[in-house]
C-alpha cells in the first residue's frame, strides 16, 4: 500500500520525502523502551506495596486486595493529573505510564479537565470517557474473545 502511494506521487514530492527522511530525527526506540520498562515497573511496584499494605492491615486476601489497590492507584493518578505532575512523568516515560491502570485514570481525568469549560453535563460528563471509552469497549471485547477460546479449549479440547 505505502509503496503504491509513493509511486503515484509527483517526482518532486518523492524527492522531498527522501530529503526529509534523511533529516528526520530518529526515534530512540531502545531508550524509550527502557524508560517505559523502568517507570512502568515502578508503578507496578507501588501497586504491589499497596496490595501488601491492604493484606497486612485490612481484611483483604490476595484475591480480594486487587480491587482497592486499583481504586487507590487511580485516585493517586487523579491527584497527580490534577496537579500537572503526571503529564511530566508521561512525557518522560511514554507507554510506561499509559499501559498500567494509572494511564486509564489519567485518560479519564485529563478529558474531564479539558472539557470543563463546556459545562458539567455535556462537557465533563459527556467527554470524560472520550479517550477511556475505547479502552473499556475493547477490553470487554478482548475478554469475551479470550473467554470463548478458553471455553472451547476446555470443553472440547480436553485441556
Amino acid at each position, binding site marked *: 500500500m505505502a509503496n503504491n502511494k509513493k509511486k503515484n506521487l509527483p517526482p518532486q514530492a518523492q524527492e522531498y520525502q527522501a530529503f526529509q527522511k534523511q533529516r528526520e530525527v530518529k526515534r530512540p526506540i531502545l*531508550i524509550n523502551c527502557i524508560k517505559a520498562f523502568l517507570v512502568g515497573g515502578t508503578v507496578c511496584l507501588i501497586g504491589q506495596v499497596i496490595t501488601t499494605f491492604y*493484606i497486612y492491615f485490612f481484611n483483604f*486476601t490476595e484475591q*480480594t*486486595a486487587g480491587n482497592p489497590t486499583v481504586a487507590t492507584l487511580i485516585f493517586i493518578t487523579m491527584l497527580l493529573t490534577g496537579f500537572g505532575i503526571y503529564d511530566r512523568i508521561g512525557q518522560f516515560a511514554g507507554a510506561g505510564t499509559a499501559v498500567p491502570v494509572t494511564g486509564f485514570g489519567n485518560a479519564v481525568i485529563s478529558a474531564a479537565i479539558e472539557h470543563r469549560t463546556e459545562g458539567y453535563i455535556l462537557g465533563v460528563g459527556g467527554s470524560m470517557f472520550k479517550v477511556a471509552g475505547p479502552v473499556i469497549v475493547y477490553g470487554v471485547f478482548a475478554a469475551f474473545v479470550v473467554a470463548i477460546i478458553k471455553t472451547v479449549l476446555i470443553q472440547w479440547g480436553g485441556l
Partner: protein
Amino acid sequence: MGNQKIILSLIICLILFGCGNESADENANNNQSIEVENISANKLIDQEPSNKAKDILKKHDEVTGIKAANTSKDMIIAVQIEHNKRFQLQKIKKDLTKELKEHFKNFHVELTIDKKIYLELEKLEEKLDSKSITPSKLGKEIDRITKLSKEKT
C-alpha cells in the same frame, strides 16, 4: 547522551543485583529453612492432626512455610510456596490438597496459598500456644478464616 549513561548504569546495577540475589537464594536452599513450628500439645483442643499435616507437607521442597489449625471436624492449612515455583501455584495447590485429603479422611480439609490466611493462622497459632483461646472461640475463628479464604470479590 547524559540520559543514556544514566540508564546504562541503572541496567548494569539491576543485572548485578539480580545475579547477587540468585547466589544468595542458592545458599538459602541448601540450608532448607522451612518456617514450621508445631503447636504445643493442649488437652482442651487437640492440635495433633495439624502437626501431622505439617510433617507431611514439610517433605515437599517447594513449601517454605506452613501454618495450620484444626477443630474436631475442620482443618485449615496455609502454605507458602518458594518464589520461583509460584508459576505452577494452582497445580501445587491441587496436588497438596489431594494428598492431605487422602491422609485426613475424617476432616474437612481446606488448603490455601493466600498470604492473608497465612498471617491470620499465624496469629491463631500464637493464641493456641499461649492457651488463651477456648474451643468454641477456636471453632468460630476457623470458620471465619475459612470464609475469608473463599471470598472472591
